[in-house]
């Protein structure tokens, strides 16, 4: 059974149809990409999946469980973590504290245990710290754990976001344009990191990306959408040779003539 199954997902903002009857499946242990021209509705799909937008119609099944009308925090608890297109770090907090946020849904200390600082609360705090440090180590910035998030260079801030998402111990990781703003060297490290996340941690990855080179390299299967409609699906080569995809990105010849 597929880890994530989207059936006829539709999202309308008034008259605008941002996502139109989109269906796709993500198999467990795969790396899948969602591409499309600007404004094609890619981030809208992510926002529906993570509960930030309510889909107008359709069904989303994660491990057989419906995600429709679930709150974002509960979806994260179910095992789906995301990163944001524009970084959304907790800027005034340290790197370690940022990553510790991911452990929130896996722990449960409440008021009385906190105030009394019971043994279990102390053990839990220690556990949160250890897991978070391990995640930081995994993405390679453990040495910067006590820095303020806002003081890190852009590439490192991206890594904090990944570490934070990993700390939620997800089964599926949604990456919204993970390579945006990274240089060539950082991009190749990102590809290596994505493979490590999939192979060492057994986490399925679903990403939105504009960098075709990167998409072609990492993902076994690519979905292409345009104006919220899926226009193609397949391997890198199949997608590249699909005339519909070329049309969506470059436009029709006759349209150009008339323009």
């Amino acid at each position: 059974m597929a880890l994530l199954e989207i059936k006829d997902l539709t999202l309308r903002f008034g008259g605008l149809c941002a996502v139109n009857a989109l269906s796709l499946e993500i198999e467990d242990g795969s790396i899948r990409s969602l591409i499309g021209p600007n404004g094609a509705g890619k981030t809208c799909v992510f926002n529906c999946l993570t509960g930030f937008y309510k889909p107008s119609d359709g069904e989303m099944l994660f491990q057989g469980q419906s995600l429709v009308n679930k709150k974002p925090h509960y979806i994260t608890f179910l095992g789906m973590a995301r990163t944001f297109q524009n970084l959304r770090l907790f800027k005034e907090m340290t790197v370690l504290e940022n990553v510790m946020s991911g452990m929130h849904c896996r722990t449960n200390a409440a008021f009385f245990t906190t105030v009394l600082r019971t043994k279990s609360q102390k053990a839990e705090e220690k556990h949160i710290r250890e897991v978070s440090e391990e995640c930081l180590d995994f993405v390679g910035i453990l040495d910067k754990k006590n820095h303020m998030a806002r003081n890190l260079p852009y590439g490192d801030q991206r890594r904090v976001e990944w570490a934070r998402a990993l700390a939620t111990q997800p089964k599926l990781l949604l990456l919204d344009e993970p390579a945006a703003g990274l240089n060539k060297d950082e991009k190749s490290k990102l590809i290596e990191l994505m493979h490590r996340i999939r192979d060492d941690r057994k986490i399925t990855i679903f990403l939105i990306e504009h960098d075709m080179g990167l998409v072609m390299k990492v993902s076994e299967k690519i979905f292409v959408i345009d104006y919220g409609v899926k226009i193609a699906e397949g391997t890198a080569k199949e997608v590249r040779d699909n005339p519909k995809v070329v049309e969506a990105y470059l436009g029709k010849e006759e349209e150009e003539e008339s323009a």
Partner: protein
Amino acid sequence: MAENKKKPKLTTPLESIIESLFRFFDNKVYRYTALFAASGFLLILPSLSSRFTQEIMTNLFFYVVVCLGLNIIIGYAGLLHLGYAAFFAVGAYTTGIMSSRFGIDFWLTLPFSVVAAVLAGLAIGFPTLRLRGDYLAIVTLGFGEITRLTIRNLDITGGAVGLIGIQRPVFFGITLNQISHFYYMFFILAILAIFVSYRLHDSRMGRAWEYIREDEDAAAAMGINVTTSRLYAFIIGSSFGAVAGSFFAAKMTAISPDSFMFIHSVMFLMAVVLGGMGKIPGVVLGCIIVVLIPEISRDIGQYRLLIFAFMLLIIMLYRPQGIWPDRPTISAKE
């Protein structure tokens, strides 16, 4: 190039004095010695000072308890609450009614006072916590006034006259009726409030509030239940206020709606904002300023609101994060 080396930030003399104090107390030995000396001094103060001084200090401790409660709502969870006096009134009136009308022992009224505050916190919090920023402020402002007007018009609360004959608490056979008794009572409460605040701040719950304050959507994406966390802040914050209110009722033995006016909410809010929202020493400092300034010279008592207004303006212009300095960061030290 020399210009670049200069700090672009405007540093006031007051700020630099506090900054250097802060550096000094970074040393653990100095910090604990100072804390020890301060608590020792506060413990023997009643035997050295006049009733007047004790009264002011008791009032200060009372402010610390209430403002730390408000700090959980405003400073920790980032919810602008303008009707905090209402929670304080809920506590005071719960104790007041149970004690004066039904003759129930003061200590037994405390849990009811907390429950009443939790219920009030839920009643106001549940429908309004979806609101952001200014809108929440307007609703809480309204809630504060509604509570006061309800108290003023109900029979059981004694209407505009209020309640009289609230019993004094008995503590291990001693009836608490001297000002020095209440001095110690509120001193213990203030220490407790500081203790609980510290524990909460440095915990999973405290961090959740901080994440939500920084970025609500990112916090939700990381698996934090925003509504529940905020509700917790509301409930815990209200409980602080209610407990303080109960003790206030016991100390005064008479309460009236006039003790819970909007101006009281404003004074609590000012203490939190002046010192530094979310920072416990900052809030204590804010309480010291708000309580002591009008008392230092009785002459300026008349103008205290004017003085506070000026202080608030200056703070907002030059140091919006409050008087107490921010925590130093690794990169700041480098």
